[in-house]
């Protein structure tokens, strides 16, 4: 079984850098790391291949300058190989532009299953997995909490507000994996050393047959016109206990649909 995992490499949240005032986009000239939300997809893929008894996990990522800092973490976790797509024309790509690139790179792998995080930790658009599925003509299942492959089908538990749906889907399928549903393994020392010799295919737009006008700033269907500071958090409500504080707290949480 071949599983492709979409992996985004993001600026380290501990040192997130700054916005570029000209483009209103995040500067990405610092070291990039594996987006934690994608580590769940990598872990899920490794577990599925382990359960299948054979197969491989291939990573696909798009980043400037053939950056592989985050990919190496996922390779050290146990993925077999990776594709990194870099091209100067990709600067400014919106979610759809990114999805076009990822879909083209994934298609070359002829996967049985494509996994992605539900949303990245820097962009938070949350639409790339579904766009990739649409562009590839594949079914899409979102918010998976568990996946198993049985009889050539994917059996997926899909999280909902009320619980979860049981979904059965033919392969290949694109599935987005909810954060926190598996515990990503730590890279071992031998995994880190082995990652150095794992193949990383470097591709550009020409190699993927994508017209530069369809991606990057040129192809973006959205424009960030302004960026404002998030409003300061408002002071919380103080509940004085007159004997009924517990009831008011329960009512408050009930309003938020937490209970």
């Amino acid at each position, binding site marked *: 079984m071949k599983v492709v995992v979409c992996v985004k490499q993001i600026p380290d949240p501990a040192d997130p850098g700054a916005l570029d005032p000209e483009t209103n986009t995040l500067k990405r000239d610092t070291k990039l790391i594996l987006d934690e939300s994608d580590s769940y997809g990598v872990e899920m893929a490794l577990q599925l291949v382990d359960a299948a008894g054979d197969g491989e996990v291939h990573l696909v990522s798009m980043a400037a300058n053939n950056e592989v800092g985050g990919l190496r973490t996922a390779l050290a976790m146990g993925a077999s190989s990776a594709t990194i797509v870099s091209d100067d024309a990709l600067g400014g790509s919106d979610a759809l532009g990114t999805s076009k690139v990822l879909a083209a790179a994934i298609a070359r792998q002829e996967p049985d299953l494509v996994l992605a995080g539900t949303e990245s930790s820097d962009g938070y658009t949350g639409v790339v997995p579904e766009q990739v599925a649409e562009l590839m003509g594949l079914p899409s299942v979102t918010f998976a909490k568990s996946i198993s492959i049985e009889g050539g089908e994917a059996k997926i538990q899909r999280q909902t507000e009320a619980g979860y749906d049981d979904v059965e889907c033919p392969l290949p399928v694109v599935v987005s994996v909810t954060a926190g549903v598996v515990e990503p393994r*730590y*890279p*071992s*020392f031998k995994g*880190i*050393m082995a990652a150095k010799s794992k193949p990383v295919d470097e591709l550009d737009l020409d190699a993927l047959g994508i017209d530069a006008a369809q991606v990057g700033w040129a192809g973006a269907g959205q424009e960030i016109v302004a960026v404002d500071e998030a409003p300061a958090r408002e002071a919380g409500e103080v509940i004085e206990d007159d004997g009924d504080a517990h009831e008011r707290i329960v009512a408050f949480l009930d309003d938020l649909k937490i209970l």
Partner: protein
Amino acid sequence: MDFAPNPDHELIIEAVEALCARFDDSYWSEHDQRHEFPWDFYREMAAGGWVGIAIPEQYGGGGAGIAEAALVLNRVAASGAAMNGSSALHLTVFGLNPVVKFANDRLKETFLPRAAVGDLHVAFGVTEPDAGTDTSRITTRATDDGMGGWIVNGRKIWTTKALESEVCLLLARTDGIPGEGFDGLSLFLVDLDPEHCEVVPIPKLGRNAVASCEVAYDDLPVESWRLIGERGRGFHHILHGLNPERILLAAMACGIGEAALRRATAYANEREVFGRLIGSNQAVSHPLAKAHMDLHAAMNMMREAAWRYDNGLDCGEHANTAKYLAAEASFSAADHALQTLGGLGYATEYHVERYWREARLQRIAPVSQEMTLNYIAQNVMGLPRSY
């Protein structure tokens, strides 16, 4: 020596820090208070291949150098695990160096693969009640049993991890007279057989999750193949591992200092007195800034020593200098951190007192600061021997 970012080292740091993050300060404080070895932590580190990182690949280890091993122990210590975490590992990480370098194939093949996966705990038995820095005075004796093997009798102190360890690297006298030179001492890898070894932990100031013990050897039988290297050359075999040990301890010390400064800086940035943050007072910020610089300098000295060792260059001066500077910087950082937190620094809850107790250790062990100065004065600078 290259100061450019090393992708391997960055990944090692990332992975070890992520693993250590699961074992917070409370974990270490509880284990310290209960005098309980950190088994959960040790097993996780072993499973990740970090305990066997420096064992040669042919025996299933990581085959990495002292630079990488030092980095691992530095990040462990800096996580807040301090000496309780790093010294739970370090004897297996590099303690078997004399076995790798000098032992017969049977010893290597029997024990190194188990050490590589963290399954073999090793203690180190050199110091005796009357033979500390002056190792030539060792009286623990291995006598010929007449059948090619040995019988060991004697008493060692400060044998770290003797309670958890199955085997011990033991320096014992096979020949010669105590106090008359180092020839005549031989190195063995012995079983800590409870029938013949009485192990008693020594109550001590800190690092209480990892016990150091007094071990009495009473007619302990040792088979001939357990002799490491040449009979009578044991001290010289141990010397080979002393520089790596100093480098690792320097890295660990710097990690403790970093943990202490992290706590102190956070506190100085949030604690207000007389209407202002205490960190805005130079009497608070300057000592912390100096501690930061001292730690950085010691860490770079450690890296140079590690680089020299890994590249086969002499590193006695560098390893001793690194250990000395790191011990001073670490304790100074912990002491100023304690001062910054004031009464809270003295309270167990804030962990700085634990760092302080553990940072103090490096100034006396495995060699005192004074003996390190003697080494530099005599062996590096050519000054007369002073003792």
